[in-house]
């Protein structure tokens, strides 16, 4: 296990990583966060909480009986990668990662978020 600071710092070592946060999607509040560039990460966390809630409602309405592993949002210059925690102790949280599109490796980023989910200690 690693501390929150260590775990988030590890994520920010990824090529193109700009910001990362672990967010409670019950309240929209960021539990921990770290960023290399200045932008309103708290607002982004709160807004993406609504994205997750909408997707969870859609899955329920479609009767899919399935769960979300991650969500990728592709912008012109950035990737926003959202991974819902699969760990019992972190149920109801998601990790939100912002990456520079021109530099990021999505496969590595997804694996890194999966590792963070397994190892982070809040």
């Amino acid at each position: 296990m690693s501390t929150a600071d260590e775990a988030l710092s590890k994520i920010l070592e990824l090529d193109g990583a700009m910001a990362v946060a672990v967010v409670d999607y019950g309240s929209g509040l960021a539990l921990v966060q770290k960023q290399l560039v200045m932008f309103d990460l708290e607002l982004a966390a709160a807004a993406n909480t609504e994205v997750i809630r909408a997707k969870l409602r859609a899955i329920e309405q479609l009767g899919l009986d399935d769960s979300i592993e991650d969500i990728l949002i592709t912008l012109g210059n950035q990737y926003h990668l959202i991974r819902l925690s699969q760990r019992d102790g972190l149920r109801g949280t998601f990790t939100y990662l912002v990456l520079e599109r021109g530099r990021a490796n999505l496969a590595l980023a997804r694996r890194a978020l999966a590792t963070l989910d397994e190892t982070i200690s809040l």
Partner: protein
Amino acid sequence: MAASPSGAAVAGPRSVGDVLERIDDALENVAHVLALGPGGEPIGSSGVDAAPIVDLARAIAAALSASGPQIPGDSARCVLNTAESCVFVYRLGKDLSVILVGPSDWNIALTGRRTEQLLVEFVDAYLSEMQARSPENIPGELPRRDGVGPEREPSGNTAETRREKHARGATPHGDYALLTRVLQALVDL
């Protein structure tokens, strides 16, 4: 029910009631928006039936006041989450409180941001109304929370009526009664 400031005098471009309506419009699933003045009297509200929550709002505001020096500064925000409701109480200086009631899974971060942008306007409107009622009485400045962003127009679905929003955000009155008892017990400690 439209916002209904109890005072007759309205000065400046926006009244307390107007600002409470704007807060109401800016929030999703809000059940009540209520403002209390000095002494805990309601000075404006926006909700299907605000009466049941006045006591609750007074109790929370009193609890914040009773905390006194334990809360640095003159303003504070209290968020109370129960199984059925989420209650925001903003204590603005010694005079004013703004209370919001919504569902238990309210997005606390977004609700706070959308509301806090408008609280500055609320305080300004309140001070203007006070000044208009007593021109010889120059109002003092109330403290403002740091980090308040620029004003934004509400982005909600305008086709939905306020009544529909309140109906979605409303919670059973029994929960208010429970909250009131719990908070009263805290105040009485």
